[in-house]
């Protein structure tokens, strides 16, 4: 059981998927010799050869569109878009084609592709390299949206995404890429794509979020525990389709919920979870739901970036507000 970071776990999952299934191909900018700008595809060209690991021209729309053609022909393309800031150009292809190819041909042609892209701030990256744009993808029927928050979940969810018979957008928080190492089971076991992960159990308040902020949720939970407040921490992981049940069950128990994400507040996907609580979950709610998110501003460049990112302190303050209600 090797120790691995998230980005190494992604690499293991890619290698495993390629080894298990000849139809799996990797394509993107600099995914070959360079092994990807974050090294997620490191070593794959050497191991699987240039017919399975393809450096593309610098053209994101074509990358996404070529995947649609490959997938319809029975391949399982896994494309890398270098940063989320450059993935918006692919929405046209994802929404108008990838996500509906099965539906519009009544199942004659299908589109089992994965579009991976690093996302999020916190690594002092240049302008346009710190976006959390998941909400641009979560209202697109036919598309799954997944974002792991640990090496093992990265591994298992990516395997699941690649094996899934339909298109998946797979977002990888850059600030988690090398943040931690953990022992990884590289045994080809996929994780479910329709399930939240409860990272910590607790009866007093539910913290629910995904991606980069998962660490801040856990650290807030630890600090709360020291004060005798037990937080349940849920990593949503698969945003679409959403496992509302797990979240609702948790809030049914705790009666309080703080939703956390790095993307801007308004129209962020956290709103969907809050909507579940305002709807089916309403009768459980003992306090107004709190959202701790990025502000509705452009992610600042590196000097101010930490003021933008939701911190454990901000989460704690929100928890205290929810606890202050009857």
């Amino acid at each position: 059981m090797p120790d691995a970071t998230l980005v190494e776990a992604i690499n293991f999952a890619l290698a495993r998927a390629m080894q298990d299934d000849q139809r799996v191909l990797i394509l993107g900018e600099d995914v070959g010799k360079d092994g990807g700008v974050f090294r997620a595809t490191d070593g794959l060209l050497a191991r699987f050869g240039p017919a399975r690991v393809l450096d593309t021209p610098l053209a994101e729309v074509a990358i996404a569109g070529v995947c649609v053609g490959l997938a319809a022909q029975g391949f399982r393309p896994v494309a890398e878009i270098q940063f989320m800031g450059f993935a918006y150009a692919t929405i046209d292809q994802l929404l108008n084609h990838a996500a509906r190819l099965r539906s519009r041909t009544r199942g004659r042609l299908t589109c089992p592709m994965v579009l991976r892209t690093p996302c999020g701030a916190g690594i002092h990256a240049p302008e346009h390299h710190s976006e959390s744009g998941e909400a641009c993808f979560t209202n697109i029927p036919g598309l799954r949206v997944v974002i792991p928050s640990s090496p093992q979940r990265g591994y298992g969810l990516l395997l699941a995404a690649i094996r899934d018979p339909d298109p998946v957008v797979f977002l990888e928080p850059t600030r988690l890429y090398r943040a931690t190492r953990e022992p990884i089971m590289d045994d080809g076991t996929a994780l479910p794509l329709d399930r939240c992960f409860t990272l910590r159990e607790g009866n007093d308040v539910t913290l629910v979020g995904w991606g980069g902020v998962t660490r801040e949720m856990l650290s807030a939970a630890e600090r709360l525990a020291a004060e005798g407040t037990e937080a349940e921490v849920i990593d949503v992981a698969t945003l679409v389709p959403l496992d509302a049940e797990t979240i609702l069950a948790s809030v049914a128990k705790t009666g309080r919920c703080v939703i956390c994400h790095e993307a801007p507040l308004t129209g962020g996907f956290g709103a969907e979870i809050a909507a579940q609580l305002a709807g089916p979950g309403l009768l459980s709610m003992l306090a107004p739901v709190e959202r701790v998110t990025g502000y509705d501003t452009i992610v600042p460049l590196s000097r101010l970036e930490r003021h933008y990112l939701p911190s454990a302190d901000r989460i704690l303050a929100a928890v205290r507000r929810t606890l202050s209600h009857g």
Partner: protein
Amino acid sequence: MTTTHVAQFSVPFTRHLESDGTAVGALPPFAGNPVDLVPLYRGMVLARIFDAKAVALQRTGRLGTFASSLGQEAVGVGAASAMAADDVLVPSFRDQAAQLWRGVTPVELLLYWGGDERGSDFAGPREDFPISVPVASHVPHAAGIALALKLRQQARGVLCIVGDGATSKGDFYEALNLAGVWRLPLVVLVNNNQWAISVPRSAQSAAATLAQKAIAAGIPGEQVDGNDVIAVRERVALALERARSGGGASLIEALTYRLADHTTADDARRYRDDAEVSTHWHGEPVARLRAYLVSRKAWSRDDEERALADAAAEIDRAAETYLATPPQPVWAMFDHLFAALPAALASQRAQAIAGGTGDA
């Protein structure tokens, strides 16, 4: 100063039949015997009659918005007849002539344009793509299919058809460039009908020809008379052969003219003169090939009457079948969304079946 010239290009143009149907020089082998051209003629007639029927159905509220290919039948039939059965067609929204030739049935086409997704689940060319309404967005798909064929080392080619307007789009270009550098077995055929809705070809690009868009991608580009089905077939066949045998991608611009409105939702008189349209009736592809066939005694007035009647009967039958096809059940919109419906959507499906008024 040194000024040298580091690269040279030229754009060839091919025509076999003059606009009055006179052959210019020797025809390609497939056209050696005029009788062998009759299927092409019938294919064009079928498309024209299909279009007329579709427009009539639309005018009477029995079909949705429809894009006629009137005057452009040689592009579709010429290209499709140049394809092998296992080549893959990636069509645009005005390519019913090519689709019909490839074995998509008139019923399927009518279903599609009538607002029924089953029309894109055609029984014939199973690997062909459904039409692309978003202009040019299918060229990357065609490149992806071509890549698949190449990776599997199959001697097959992909034909993608776009309009003149489509050549202004970034995805057209990205895909062409990628197909060039990867030497993909792809032929992109530009149906240059001179108009993109109300925008004339001259306002679309300063490029003297659209064929020269190929130069940017480092692939061969050429023009062909798009109202000459023999020339279209010949040039597309050569390009596809080159593609299948590892010679890489190419671009063909077929010069034709949109004799009809853009679609049934359009009124072309708002932006173009009837006089311009009238001049283009001269040289239109069906009359042109007919003139040639008649001149070679390969076609008679009787043949013509019978061909028209046969095609009309076929299309009428198709229209009846289409009109008699009950719509899909409500749950069809859920059942083809994913391989298996996610649990989260089960209640929505149930609600839709209940007319939307049950519990969500």
